[in-house]
Structure formats: structure tokens, C-alpha cells
């Protein structure tokens, strides 16, 4: 039975490097979501990039890779660019799912794996000029995706200093493609937010981006920090008896739902993945 279970569980890789912080909780979230997860150092993956062929999902967790020296995610993006770019591109091309959270999002943008790549987007210093840790409401994007339910309201913490997305279009006035906005900051009632509910002053309040095919997600907020109801910052106010609420009593879905949806997607689409074998 255990063997059967593990064979049906989609495999996920959490890629870490010097200064990655959120790898363990990202592993935990993916495991709770039903994936079989391996955490791997970028140096180990560089030695054997074929490991990518055996997985369906790669997560770039949050943290301060290489201290965010020079710019957030800059050194790790540079390393991946030099060592793993073609393999990563092949992974994406064959339908693998990628999530970059916080620092991982910054890495994906610098790598050009998300809209705004090719030098048209950047994650810059928060308008407030400082690091901010706070819970924020998010509107999810308009299109169906393996990662989120469209038009839903989510609630998650952000914790970053370089999360302001700016858009540098090829032609002046060119609009950012709405369908590639994965999440945008909003008020509790889903209306347009200003600081601090929009914690960084992003272009169009963008909190996360998604690739045109919906497979690659990058987001500043941390879904892996909201995988149990008591992670809700004011859970004590939800039930009249003051006990920890059940998941269905929460006013918002768990951050875990994002990982669940992706893992469920892999379960139902595993056969679509070109090159993923049960041979490894």
C-alpha cells in the first residue's frame, strides 16, 4: 500500500542555495499537499541536472539567497543562468510546474521565466523603503490555473523589502497582460488597496505573476506560512469559544490550498508530462 501511495504521489523538488530560508516549510507544505518532496542544494543539482527529469514540480523557496547581495535573488539567478538554464527551460517546456515564492519569485523574474522577463519587469525596493512583514489580502488572477482558483480572495503574509513589481514595456503605454497577473494586493472587501494593505506599491498592485501557460507561478506572499488554521494571525477571533477553528470555518482558504491544487493537478496530468518516468 505504502509503495502504491508513494508511486502515485507526484514528486517535487525544493531547490535551495546558500541563504535560502523557507525550504523546510515549503517541503512541509508540499508534503501536506500530497507530494513526495526532496530538498536539494543547487550545487548538488548542478552536478546531476537529470534529477529534474524525474520530478513534476520545482519550488524556489523564500529567503535571502547569497544575502540578497547586489539585488534580491541576483546571485542565485546568475548561478542558474550559468549552470542550469537549458535544463530548467526543458523542464518548463515539458509541462513541469514551477513556483517561486518571495526570493524564489525574484529569481524567476531575473531568469526571465515569467512575464516581465526579457528585461521588461523587475522587483524593486518597497515604496516604503523598508522590509515589511504583514498579512495581506489578495485577489487571484482571472484565468484558470493549476495553482489558484480564479477570482478568489486569499490571505497570506508577505515578508520582504524588494517586492515592488515595476513594468518596463517595450512600447510606452503598453499594458501589462492582465491574464498573467496571478495575485494582486487588495483590501479585505477585495477593493483596490493602498499602503499598507498594498505593502510595496507594485504596478497594478501586483503580488504575483503567472506564465502564459499557467505552469510557472511567482509570488511575493508566502502560502507555505499558512498551512494550518492556527497560522491565521487572528484565529482567536474566529470562533465564539476561542478554540482553533476548523479549516472550513476560516474566512479564507489556507495557503496550503495553492500547493494542494498544484499537486492535484500533477496527479491528474501526470501522463501529460513529457519525459517524467516512474523509472527513477
Amino acid at each position, binding site marked *: 500500500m505504502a509503495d502504491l501511495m508513494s508511486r502515485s504521489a507526484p514528486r517535487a523538488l525544493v531547490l*535551495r542555495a*546558500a*541563504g*535560502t*530560508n*523557507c525550504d*523546510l*516549510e515549503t517541503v*512541509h*507544505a508540499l508534503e501536506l499537499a500530497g507530494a513526495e518532496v526532496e530538498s536539494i542544494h543547487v*550545487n*548538488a543539482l548542478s552536478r546531476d541536472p537529470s534529477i529534474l527529469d524525474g520530478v513534476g514540480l520545482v519550488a524556489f523557496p*523564500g529567503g*535571502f539567497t*547569497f*544575502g540578497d*547581495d*547586489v*539585488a534580491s535573488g*541576483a*546571485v542565485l539567478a*546568475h*548561478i542558474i543562468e*550559468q549552470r542550469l538554464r537549458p535544463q530548467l527551460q526543458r523542464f518548463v517546456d515539458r509541462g513541469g510546474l514551477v513556483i517561486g515564492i518571495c526570493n524564489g519569485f525574484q529569481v524567476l523574474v*531575473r531568469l526571465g521565466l515569467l512575464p516581465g522577463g526579457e*528585461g521588461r519587469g*523587475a522587483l*524593486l*525596493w*518597497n*515604496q*516604503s*523603503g*523598508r*522590509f*515589511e*512583514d*504583514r*498579512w495581506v489580502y489578495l485577489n487571484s488572477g482571472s484565468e484558470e490555473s493549476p495553482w489558484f482558483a480564479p477570482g478568489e480572495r486569499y490571505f497570506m*503574509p508577505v*515578508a520582504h523589502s524588494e517586492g515592488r513589481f*515595476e513594468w*518596463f514595456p517595450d512600447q510606452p503605454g503598453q499594458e501589462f497582460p492582465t491574464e498573467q497577473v496571478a495575485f494582486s494586493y487588495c483590501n479585505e472587501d477585495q477593493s483596490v488597496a493602498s*499602503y*499598507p494593505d498594498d505593502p510595496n*506599491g507594485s504596478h497594478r498592485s501586483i503580488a504575483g505573476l503567472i506564465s502564459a501557460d499557467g505552469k510557472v507561478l511567482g509570488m511575493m506572499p508566502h502560502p*507555505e*506560512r499558512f*498551512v*494550518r488554521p*492556527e*497560522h491565521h*494571525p*487572528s484565529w*482567536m*477571533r474566529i470562533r465564539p*469559544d*476561542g*478554540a*482553533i477553528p476548523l479549516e472550513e470555518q476560516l474566512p479564507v482558504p489556507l495557503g496550503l490550498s495553492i500547493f494542494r491544487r498544484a499537486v492535484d493537478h500533477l496527479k491528474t496530468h501526470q501522463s501529460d508530462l513529457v519525459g517524467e518516468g516512474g523509472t527513477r
Partner: protein
Amino acid sequence: MSLTYTVTILHDLDPNPSPDHDLREALMAVGCSPDEGDLLASDPIFYLRIPEQDADRVEALAQQFLAGSPACRAVVHPGVTMPPRDDDQAAIVVQRRPGVMDPVSQSVIHAMSESGFVSSQCQVRTARRYRIGGIETNVSMLDGLASRLGNGIVDEWRSFSGGEEEQVPDPFREFPSHSQGRVEIPLIEASDEELVAISVDGGLSLDLAEMQAIRQHYIERGREPSEIELETIAQTWSEHCCHKTLTGAIRHGDLRYGNLLQETIFQATRQLDLPWCWSIFRDNAGVIGIDEEWGVSFKVETHNHPSALEPYGGAGTGIGGVIRDTLGTGVGARPILNTDVFCFAPTDTAAENLPTGTLHPRRLLRGVVAGVRDYGNRMGIPTANGAIHFHPGFVGNPLVFCGSVGLMRREHVDKEVHPGDLVVAVGGKTGRDGIHGATFSSRELTEDSEQDSSGAVQIGNPLEEKKVLDAMMRIRDENLCRSVTDCGAGGFSSAVGEMGEETGAEIHLDRAPLKYPGLGPTEVWISEAQERMVFAVEPSKLARIQEILLEEEVECAVLGEFRDDGKLRLLHHDLLVGELDVKFLHGGRPSQERVSIPPEPKPLIKAEVDHLDAQQLLCTLLADGNVASKEPVIRQYDHEVQGRMTLRPLAGADRDAPMDGCALDPLRDGSHQVVVSCGLTLGMGEVDPYQMACHSVDEALRNCIASGGSLERAALLDNYAWGDVKDPAILGQIVECSRGAADAALAYGTPFISGKDSLHNTYRAGGVSRSIPPVLLVSAISITKGPLRVPGSDLKEAGSSMMLIGPEGAIPGSLMQWLHGGGGGIPAPFDRQLGPRLLQQVRQWIVAGQLRSLHDLSDGGLAVAAAEMAFGGGGVGLDLDIGALGDDRNRSLFGEGPHRFLAEVRDTDVERITADAEAVGIPLTCIGRSVVEPTLIIRHGLDRCIESGVGELKQIWKRSLEAIWPTS
């Protein structure tokens, strides 16, 4: 042949550049208020020195990596002297002094090696160029500005008034090299005067009796000590390393202590003898069990003197140091929580009231917070508990406490060293930074401290420590290491000395990886360069350790081995530079009996408050830094990382109301909770140090209970911060404090498991030595089973009864008293019978879900607590009547004391709770109700002494610290 380039990164393509708060802050400090239209910017500069063959890679590196975003561009110029820039603005270039840690440079070199540069021949230094356009500048103004943008201890700078060539000191210049080989210190025939002179001139901080003991030891051995031997003894015998005052003999009136700490605080722990205390007072942190398999370690340290001189580096290396304590507990605990507690002078202290050579408290506060933020956040450890206090007594000597909680399995708690084990240094390279930190911390801060002690102040490199952490957790889990300790004060000398305390060791100092050439053996031995650990490794396991370290990009070196002959042998290029008996080193310090004067009760000096009504007093207290919202600080710390938090420092309807502590789910499965809180009753120390200790223990535990903890499994840490302990009156305060702490711990059944003292917190101002106010920080950690049960301090609904739990407070020792010029008197007494009974009952009510909200009464008393509860209520107000509490209105509103809470109770539960309270004998008074109107009303009989909108009060409470960290 090497080439040098200056690469400047300009962010001028960013459509919405964020404000440069540091530059604005510095401008305001020199009397400028920048306008919207002023062109203020700070541009990173990278100085590159590369081999000629890599010249054609520079432009691509600069544009694609160093700029690397459509928001900015790189300007590359050969050399380090820049021709006049076309922006023609006044500018200041600030760079680190040679030898000071520059973490960014290491990351750039890493990236260069990926790009094909011959990185072994590359050097990088960084700087920042501040541009000031639109503001009238002159030479002296620019100099003043520069000294606020940089800190002379670690930085150097040049200012340029615009349109001129920009020449900076060569960032690649090297240190002069130091003497090598064996240096002898003539001691055998030295007179007592000469002994004192040797100690003072060498910065050894040894007193005459200690120097005499060393002289006697070397007379017996028939030779002179070498420099490195004397330094090793000074490090080992320093107050910082062996706590000689608190573990020494003291005659205190009729009481005699052979070892003060042993006979007070440790004694209480021994007496309680709790099976879940796994490691107490013997390792780098105390360890208690969560269940049979898992445990948590906890340690709090201070880093006061470095933070006074260079707050950013001092606080950063403070948090870095205590994290290494966690890594060095057993064979390594995983850090899961940081705490921080600061004491500063008020941020509005007038410049003329600052002692010469000290930084303004506002600058200290901003720097310390930035240091904790940048180090803690980069380490990926939530900083989720702490406090900030303000008192004029800290004007020359702030306090910076940093704490760390670690998670570990029981099997990793014990460690041992076997003769023949390798001594392996792991982590950062050794440099000249941080020489004499241990002995420096035991000295008075003077006007010249900045000059004298610059070596003791460092900039941390959190990335290095994070890599060490990641590697160590793998090494621990594969059981590759027999013992571990951190390099803290005293560097290798303390780390190896401690580990080889029983065995001895042979160390080849030339094998330590160095940041730059030219370090003498003594410097290598005592350097306190950050981010280093020492392992004791069975030789057969070395290869696997090296494999892990290589993947994690951590350097290591085998320095030597542990021995079985009780000798500490130090070699440098095979020359024996020192040989010490570990027995003498660890047991040869002469003990002296000190005499202390038991403190007398202080006469009451009345606070000058007659001209203020209760409303004004409440507003003053809410705006005071001690009470004001710490949100602007808390938000800058990542207090969520690792995904374990179940109670955050801020919660409530708008997630900005203050909780009493924090809680986390250590195993991420809801099976247990770790609750952490602290207590520090600042005003009480000068009134009655015994009561201060009891009150601090009580406050820490009340906070702990209010945060979901339980007395059943709760442990404490003590952190003393005191002034000149050579003064018998001040020593007397410490004795009373120790007695109080032990008595309170026994009363509650909560053992102290670890602690640290920081003595000699004195500073010299105008020729007079001044001591800080006495401080005992008590930190509490509690383990509970199952999901967290906690009401939170935020009001939940209108229509509840508000119940005051506990006895009356008193004005003596309260914030209101000392804030308004009062002092002395008899504080509200700690009640050792009532205390535990009350906390157990409150815990039962929480578990039974009978409290809707609960807040402890601390600084500012009942009135402040009521307001804070309303701040989280999402519009719920309070209508209270304190008439039943007595005639002294100010005492009822603002008095402070132990054992006090304010609770919100559903009407249907009031009867039950009242009966419980009566049954166990707990004072309980219903003082009013929560109401629909968002107003705080407090009546005293017919007099509505406080009536104010909750929103208005909250604004007052929020804006004090917001003004220090503007967001636009």
C-alpha cells in the same frame, strides 16, 4: 598584472524610486529638511580588481549582473579615482575600512567565478555614493552628513562638492603586518605597579591579585610567560567568560555567599529538580524537554558596548553570536526563534545631554533595529518576542539583549571530547577584527572608547552563518561530530580552551584560514572574527564532514587535536609560542571576597502629576516609548519565517494590537506549543532590587500564561545588566536581585536554566563615572501539549464583563512615577503564595475557554492595559468604573505591581469565575463592561476621569515610534 575598475550602479530608470531613509535621516540630523524636489539618491559602487585576462568580461558583469534589471544601469570606469561626474551634485562616498567585513564583496566574487573570472585573483570592495542635489551644501555640512551616513569605527569617507575629481582612499590597501613568532612578557621580576601597568597597557582587564597569581605561577615554572599565554589567561579569566563577580564570594550584611549564583539562582533550580530540565547552566544554552524525544534550548546574551559604538554591527553580531550559542548547544540545536530586548535613552534626548563621544539614542535605536533585522531575517529565524525600554540612565550605555531558541533531539544534548579528536575550525575566516572583545566588554565606556576599542566592533556576515547552520544540521543529523562550540568572546582561545578543559589540546595556529596575510599567532588565537565554530571530530569522520561543507560552501581547517596530558600547546609554523596548564587556566584564578552594602529602602519622592488630569496622564503614557506601539520595529523583523508561529507579537482585529508574548508549534504538527515571553521592570530596580527581580519573574510568567503557556513546564533565563559592581552599594543591589530571582523562581516552581551577566555598564561623562539603572531581564519559555489555547489581549465583543484579576498596584516603581520625576517608596509586594495560585487558576480559565481576552497589567498599569485591549477590538470600547478600587485614583489607574491581569468574560461565565476565584482566594473585581461605542471611558465614581475615542488613543500610541521609521 591586475586592473582596477569602479562600477557605479544608477537606479535612475526606476519610475517610482523609494525614499532613501538613511540619507534623509542624516540630513535631518545636520539640520536640513529635504523637500520633495530634492535629488537625493544613493548609488552602490563596486570596486573590482581583476587579472588583465578578464578585462573583457567586466562590462557584461556590470550590466547583466551588477545592474541586472531594467530599473538601473552600470557606469564602468577604470581605476578608483573618478573624473568629475556629469551629475555635478555634491556627493559623499562611504566605504568600509580595510579589514572590515564586506559581505557583498564575497557574493560578487562568487558570481564572477560563475562568469569565468579567475576568482582567486579577483578582489572586490563595495561602497555607497550618496548624491545630494537641490540642497545648499558646504564642506562642514558635508562632513557632518558623512559622519552620520558612516561610522568612523568601521567606515571611511570622502565628500565632494560637485564637479570635481573624486578620489577615495585605496579600497584594496592592506594592513601593516604584525610581529610573528614568540613574544615573552617579563613578569617574574615585575613589581606590583608594573603588573598593573602590563594589564592596563595590554588591555587585559586583569586586576592586581590576578596578575600576582599569574606571576607566582610563572615563578614556579621558572620562566616568563609568552604574550599568547598571558592573553589566553586574560580571556579565560575575563568577567565575560567566567563571571567572576556573580560566582564569587560576597559578604552581604549578615549573609555570606561563597558563590552568589550557585547559592541563589542555581540553588533554586537544584531544589526544584525537574526531570524535564535536560541541560542547565553547563552548556551554551539551557535545554528543556518538549516530550521524551524533542527539546528546546534557550539563551539570551547581551552585546551592549559594541552596540553603543556601532549599533548596526554591534546588534547584528549580537544576534549572530547568540544564534551560534544555539548551534553550539549539545552537538547543535536548530534556531527556531529570536528574541530581542533593548534599553535606550529617550529618542528626544537633547544633544547637549549626550556624553561626548556617544551616539544619539535615535541613531542607536535605528541602527540596532537595522542590525537585528538584517542579521535575523537573513538567518531565516523569526524575531517574534522582545521589548524596548527608554530611560535617561542609558544615555551613554544602551542595552542590547539578543535571545535564541533552538530545537533539538534529546540524543544531541550531550557532547564530549576524546583525546585524539581533531580540532576543526568551521565557518568564517579569521581576521584582525574583534580583538579584545571579551576584555573590552568588562571595561568602562569612555570618550575614547571609539578610538581604543575599534577592533572590538565588527560587521557581521549572516550569509556565512546561515551556510554554517545548514551544514551543521546535516553534520549533526549524521552524527559526525562529538562536540561543538561557538567562537564567541575570546575566539579560538575560549572555544578550544573550553572544549579542552579536561584534556588539553595542540593547536597549529598557522592552519587557520585568514582573511588577509600578516596576522600574528596571538591575533589568530584571540580574534573574535564572527561566524566561526569549533568541532571535535573523530578522525574517521572528517572526510564526510568535509564533503558536506564543500557542498554548502563552508570552509574548514583542522587546527590540531585534543590531547590527554592537560596541556594547551600553541604552535605557529612549528614554533611553540605557548604552553599552558589547563588546570591553572581554569582553576588558578584567585578568588576574593567582596563586601556589598545591603540597600536601604528609598524615601518616596512624589511624582509631579498634580497639574495633570487622568486623561493627560494616559496620553503621556501611551505616547511614551516604553508603552508606545512597537509595530514599526516588529514589521521590519520577519516574525513568520519557518511557518511555526501560532501567536504573533501583533494580533487583534487589525493585526496591530500588542500580545503578551509569542507561541509556536515546534514540530509543525499541533502536538506541542512553545510559548516565549519576557519581563523587565525597569523602574523597580532603583526602588527595590529584590522586588524588581520578583516582579520581573512574575511579569515574564504572567506574559507567558497570557500567551498560552503553563507553569507546569516553564523555565526561566536571567540576564543581569548592571553598572559598576566594584561599588559595594551596587554590588548589594545584585545580591538582593539574585535573592529575589531565586525566591520567585522557587515560589512558581519555574527553574532558571541559563543566564548571563553584563556588568561594568558604566560610562564616563564630564569626568564622572555613571552606572546604568539596574536591570534584570527575565525570559520565560513554556511547553504545553496540544493545540494552543490562548484568548489574546484583543477585546472580542461588546457586552462582556471586564474583570480585574489580582491585588492592587502601587505608584512606587511605576512608569508614571519615574516619568514624572518621582522615585522611591514601597512598591507593591510580590506574594509568593498568591502568585502561583493565581497563575494556575488563570491558566485553567484559559483552557476552559472562559476568558474572551486577557492582558497583563505592566507599564502604565490598568489604564494602559485597558486601552491596549481596546486597540485590538475592531471598534469595541470599554466603560469601566474604578470607584471600587479605592480613593487614590492615580494609583488605581496607573499603579503597577505583580499578579495583575485584566480579563474580558462573557456574562454567562462570570458567576463560575467568581466562584473559582473565591474558592482559591484570588482577588477578582468586576470593573465594567465592553461596549459597542468605540470609546474608552473610565469613571471614578461620578467623575468620568478618562473619556476618549479608542481610535484617537490608538493614534497617540502608534505615532511615537512611527516617527522614527517613516514609510514615505
